[in-house]
């Protein structure tokens, strides 16, 4: 670092409190101009909060923010944008029903005679797209775009505003390896143009590959900085969690010969009679087997799970459970006869946020004990059993009457896993079972899945985390545009190969080639 040029961004002693939590405490961050600076830390460590402070989305309770050596006081993202700082959020912030152009210019629109000047805007977006190789079509509707393109729209948004410092909050979480490589190519491009990038991730190998320097955050405070060239992933991990990282790898095979779930030629029509979202899918899950389904999000995995659960009607094909054809059965009947479900979006499909934990305990299991046996709900038994799950599965909450919304995501997920396991399903549909969960909870959940498998449970596992898929699965299918396009051996496949199948190119491109 050259001491004479001021730092692009410097945060000094930042503290940010939310009611009941201190999200950031006395954080220090120094980012030099023109570097890619990574911030790593566990879930909930306070990375997003810190970046939101830098982006003017909220004000720090204590501490100073310096940009190019001058202290600044941002009152809104507008001020940050004016100072050349732009942020790509962890969750995409795009209006699906708008075009790329509209999403990009929103908030700083070029106008002519009071009208939105689409021509100028389109020209500028194409310029940006060309000079950073983003490959964007200004007139495309965002809802038609894939994840990678959406991310590039987000980057274009920031560049369009003339940002010289880019904040990318966990940009790789939703990308397959090839897309990650493309993104890193884009980042290299940005760096070449003299831009500064702040990059948040927990994937340590990635971080080491792309970053020029690293700051590690734990429990809301800075634990140190590291040089990616000299620090190992292991060292980083220990800095992050103060312990070593778990792995999803399974032990010896427990697959038995008895098929539990058999899917034959299942086809699910798209909305409004469009192209089928699941097409002619055939697979078998045996007792004690974990069948993994890999695929870039939006390729029909969610719809397949919905169809297995009876939430979507197939137009062709059959689903049988333990030899019995259940294709025409209702969701309730399927669940009663032994299908468990860990949803990919717990807030949407797994929980009643405004209801107490004990009601969440019986959700999906309304018709059997401990919820009661028939028409009435046995509140006492439900509460007691909720207490048991809270103890057995380490759900941290005061009591079964706590509202679910009060729990952190990890604790909510553990409650869901505990509830589904407690019903001893014959087959468990697990969609992204560890998404958004911190390392500790992740380990617990992996362990629970392994134990259940050992006891003979059949598991369908959908995940975006390729390590998790490879580590847990006995059989691994790849889903692309609604079809199962490949079956690979999880013992030998690498994430890169898997990524190649997922994007349709069978041979992985060499890393960082973009």
């Amino acid at each position, binding site marked *: 670092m050259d001491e004479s040029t001021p730092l692009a961004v410097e945060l000094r002693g930042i503290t940010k409190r939310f009611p009941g939590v201190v999200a950031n405490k006395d954080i220090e961050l120094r980012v030099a101009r023109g570097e890619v600076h990574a911030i790593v830390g566990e879930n909930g460590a306070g990375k997003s909060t810190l970046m939101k402070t830098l982006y003017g989305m909220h004000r720090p309770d204590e501490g100073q923010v310096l940009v190019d050596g001058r202290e600044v006081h941002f009152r809104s*993202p507008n001020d940050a944008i004016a100072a050349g700082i732009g942020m790509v959020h962890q969750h995409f912030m795009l*209006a699906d029903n708008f075009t790329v152009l509209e999403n990009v210019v929103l*908030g700083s*629109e070029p106008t002519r005679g009071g*009208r939105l000047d689409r021509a100028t805007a389109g020209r500028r977006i*194409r310029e940006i797209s060309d000079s950073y190789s983003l490959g964007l079509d200004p007139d*495309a509707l965002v809802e038609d775009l894939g994840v990678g393109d959406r991310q590039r729209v987000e980057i274009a948004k920031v560049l369009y505003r003339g940002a010289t410092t880019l904040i990318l909050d966990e940009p790789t979480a939703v990308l397959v390896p090839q897309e990650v490589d493309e993104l890193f190519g884009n980042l290299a491009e940005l760096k070449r143009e003299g831009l500064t990038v702040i990059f948040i991730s927990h994937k340590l190998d990635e971080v080491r590959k792309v970053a020029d320097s690293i700051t590690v955050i734990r429990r809301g405070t800075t634990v140190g900085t590291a040089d990616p060239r000299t620090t190992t992933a292991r060292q980083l991990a220990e800095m992050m969690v103060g312990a070593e990282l778990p792995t999803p790898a399974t032990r010896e095979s427990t697959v038995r010969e008895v098929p539990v779930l058999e899917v034959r030629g299942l086809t699910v029509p798209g909305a409004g009679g469009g192209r089928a979202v699941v097409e002619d899918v055939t697979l078998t899950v045996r007792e004690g087997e974990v069948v993994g389904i890999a695929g870039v999000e939006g390729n029909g995995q969610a719809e397949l799970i919905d169809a297995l659960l009876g939430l979507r009607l197939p137009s062709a094909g059959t689903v049988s459970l333990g030899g019995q054809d259940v294709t025409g059965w209702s969701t309730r009947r399927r669940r009663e006869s032994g299908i468990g479900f860990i949803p990919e979006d717990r807030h949407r499909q797994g929980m009643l946020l405004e209801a107490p934990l004990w009601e969440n305990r019986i959700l999906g299991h309304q018709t059997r004990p401990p919820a009661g046996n028939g028409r009435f709900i046995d509140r006492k038994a439900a509460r007691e059993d909720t207490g048991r799950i809270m103890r057995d599965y380490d759900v941290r909450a005061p009591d079964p009457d706590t509202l679910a919304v009060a729990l952190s995501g990890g604790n909510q997920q553990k409650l869901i896993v505990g509830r589904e396991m407690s019903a001893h399903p014959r087959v468990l549909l697990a969609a992204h079972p560890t998404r958004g969960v911190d390392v500790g909870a992740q380990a617990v959940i992996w362990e629970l899945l392994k134990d259940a498998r050992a006891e003979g449970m059949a598991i369908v596992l959908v995940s975006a985390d390729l390590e998790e898929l490879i580590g847990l699965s006995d059989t691994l299918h790849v889903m692309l545009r609604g079809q199962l396009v490949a079956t690979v051996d999880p013992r030998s496949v690498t994430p890169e190969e898997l990524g190649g199948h997922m994007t349709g190119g069978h041979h992985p491109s060499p890393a960082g080639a973009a």
Partner: protein
Amino acid sequence: MSTTMSTDTSAPSGVGGRLRGLAGARRVWLGVAVLLVLISVVRVVSGEDALTSSSTFSAALLLTAPILLVALGGLYAERAGVVNIGLEGMMILGTWGAGYAGYQWGWQAAIVGGLLFGALGGLLHAVATVTFGVDHVISGVAINILAAGVVRFLSESVYTGRDDGAGITQSPGMASRPPSFSVPVLSSGPDLLGELEELHWFLISDLAGVLRGFTTGVGVLTLIAVLLVPATYLLLWRTAFGLRLRSCGENPAAADSLGVAVYRIKYIAVIISGALAGLGGVVLVFIANIYREGQTNGRGFIGLAALIFGNWRPGGLTGGALLFGFADGLQLRSRSAVVALLLLVAVLLVAICIWQLARRRVVQGVLALVFAAAALVGYLTIEELPTGIVSFTPHLVTLLVLSLASQRLRMPKADGLVYRRGEH
């Protein structure tokens, strides 16, 4: 991959988009033309000239205006993500404000009064929903209840014990009359369209009747309402402000992160919404010359229906408001003509039946045919419907059309969701 997808791939999709838009507009015109031909046929067959008379259509336009304004008001709020079921209450406030200002300072003041009072209702809704995060439907219902109480209270305070025609249920008459316009030569003076209409020629006279109805004695607010449709389209879809407003209804968190002042825009939108609903009330005051309690008679809700009917778009909601206005105008003009509508329904249902059968939907097709037969039998046997039945013609028509078209509707994605900064 990223480098290969460059500008030339984008060009066709852009053009394609534009082509699709054009085809959409053409489809609408084609639909209107087909409908007009159908109605002409039905008019000739049934001999019910009221179906396309200028008298019916001028009534339709008049009855459309308040609904159109309310629906436009709803559009602003809902495009900004705030469901506004309080339109009726805001309209009520608007009628009172118009009556109060109108009797003292004339029609121009009445417009201002109606806008202001309606805007106050909107402001209240904005405070409740945007600042306090109250469920939008609930706040709207509360505003409807409150508005009815407030106007009664105001009248009781201001209008009691006077002898200028005012009382607790009504204001004095307006101090001046608003102007109205007719298109010269076509509809006034030589009245060419009028003469054409009198000839009762197939299609030509029908077209003349419709045009003449739309160009004769058009009130100033009706004119404003009609002009507001393209103006609203331009504002919401062609300006930066409009983009920001709509972004609040699609993804407020995204808008917020780009420095769009979401709360402020929602406030502005809901206040405009209230003001337009209030303006809808002013139309009613202009017709009556006074404010009168109960004058709105549920039109705020109808406006809301027109908005949904129109898929949250200015052109669509105009169609919804016109459909309602037409059915209402026809019902008020000629009760026997309403029976002729049954013939029209029968014809349309037969068309639907053929279309459904062509798409191999036998059940739907047969069902349509059965209903078509029922409508035909109704047409042939019924002379004149009783008042009770006729009175809900517009509502029934709206309901029927909605149940045919509802599944294609798409509301703004974040419409009705309470947005709190930092929570999502």
